[in-house]
């Protein structure tokens, strides 16, 4: 599903020394896996996620998504891959304000070639799968944090992506809502979704079936868990 080899990425801010964020990273995720990447802030985990999500490009190294090399695609091709193969869940939810839950979930499909009827049907189905069938026409301001993140998850999976990338999905939630969100991820994973979770919180990471540690731009496989 995801295979990266020798991936390097460094940043240089003006007046500062070159900062190697990712250094010769090798990493792979198989279809149907639920992987957590755990690391402290500044460990390079968000940069890794941006590269995996095709929002950013590596300086060098290879990246294969579903068997196709994607590291050197043009911006337009990367946009299409993001649309079709990747679902994002962010810490800050990133829902459009003054826009209903359904319309928010419809958003990624507006950039695809789906018919309007198909879009509406899929958005409704996705919101039902995350347990928000009662909140279809609510605005984000009328939803709790946990509900907003559910809308975001519905949006991430509505296009049937190859992988869902979740960056600190519980970071802005209280413990109870956070646990419910992790429960939802596990459910989705059981139903076949490949999920890649990034967090600094070991407790959150424990929901995953495999945990990878990241520190100073290098990955170390922590332990293998028996798939729950």
């Amino acid at each position: 599903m995801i295979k990266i080899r020798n991936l390097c990425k460094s940043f240089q801010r003006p007046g500062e020394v070159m900062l190697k964020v990712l250094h010769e990273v090798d990493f792979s995720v198989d279809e149907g896996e639920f992987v957590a990447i755990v690391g402290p802030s500044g460990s390079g985990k968000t940069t890794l996620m941006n590269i995996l999500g095709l929002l950013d490009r590596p300086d060098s190294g290879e990246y294969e998504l579903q068997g196709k090399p994607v590291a050197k695609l043009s911006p337009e091709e990367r946009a299409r891959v993001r649309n079709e193969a990747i679902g994002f869940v962010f810490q800050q939810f990133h829902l459009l304000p003054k826009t209903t839950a359904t319309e928010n979930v419809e958003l990624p499909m507006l950039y695809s070639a789906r018919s309007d009827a198909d879009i509406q049907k899929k958005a409704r189905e996705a919101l039902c799968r995350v347990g928000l069938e009662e909140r279809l026409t609510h605005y984000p301001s009328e939803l709790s944090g946990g509900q907003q993140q559910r809308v975001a998850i519905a949006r991430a999976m509505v296009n049937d992506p190859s992988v869902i990338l979740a960056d600190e999905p519980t970071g802005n939630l209280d413990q109870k809502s956070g646990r419910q969100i992790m429960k939802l991820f596990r459910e989705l994973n059981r139903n076949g979704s490949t999920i890649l979770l990034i967090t600094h919180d070991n407790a959150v990471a424990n929901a995953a079936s495999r945990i990878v540690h990241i520190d100073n731009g290098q990955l170390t496989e922590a332990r293998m868990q028996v798939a729950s």
Partner: protein
Amino acid sequence: MNEIRLIQSSFRNLARFKLRSFFMSIGVAVGVATLIAGNSLGGGAAQKISDQIDRMFGPGTLLIGSVELKLPDLQAVAEQMDQVVAYAPRLMMGEKGIQYAGTNEQAGVSGFSANADYVWNRSVIDGRYISNRDVDRAERVALIGTKLKETLFADADAIGEEIQIDSVPFEVVGILDPLGIDPHGDDRDMDVYVPISTAQRRLVNSDVIGNGKLVVSDADAVDQDADQVAEILRDRFQIAEGEPDTFRIYTSKFAGQAAVKAKRMLSVYVMLAAVVVLLVAAVVISSIMLVVVRDRIAEIGLRKALGATRRSIAMQFLCESTMVSLIAGVAGIVLGLGIASVIAQRYEIPVNPTLLAVSLAVLASVSVGILSGIIPARRAASLDPVESLR
């Protein structure tokens, strides 16, 4: 994103931020309204001016004006020029006090001859015109304009009633054709016409008439005729070689050109004003859109993460600015027509909006929208998704 979704989402965004959309549309609406109102009235106003010039001049006519001009001068011109078909003097006495049954009014009084209804192109709608007998006997009879009639008599019959002009009693014998406001701004429906002989003897006590009008047989030859008239008058007024004329001659041709020129000037100024307003509108939309882009950085980043290409982001903002401008343009057309019809009613000008102006207005608002959207759209499209989502 396909076109229909693009338009739908633009509409939704504009509807979500109504106040901002309103501010963005004002400039274009005002600019387009100016264009449309100016055009619909400009054409009408120019039409009215040229109609009135036609009425006052008529084709193939010459108007002579001089402080020396007397009736025998006019007769001499007519006798020496075979092409003069008819002629009639006019003695303008300016505003005089008119009294009737305790009501006082100021009105422009002029003296005319019996054939002036033909030569000066204005007859009566009620009663009778000045007759030869009136002129021969210097009768104290008067024709009054419709508005003066209304002011003095309201709904009552004016014919046969006695009014006073500078305390001289006159009998009203006719009501003049309505003419409206002339290009000088004078209300011609407040006119009073009296026989020229009566005017000379009873009101001004002078044999100077001031104006004369000639109707000639060939409308295209008025300029040559004017030269001939000038020659005769210089001779009669004994103006030495090299001295300037003490009279002026206007031809129907000259008046026609003046009307065309006035119309052109009017439309140029209106166009210029509209263009300036629209340019300002473009700057306003552009700067508001830049703020919108900055406001929606997170949204842009998100849309990019969800699969929006640079092109579809650019199109989204371009579409929004074009949409708001187009809607504003349509509102401006309606507003402009509204303003035009109010003014038209007030000044009795025909409203004739041209299809060209309406299409031009639509084109202008679309162009303003696209033009003002370019910079914000480019800025939005070039945002880095990683930075925007931070």
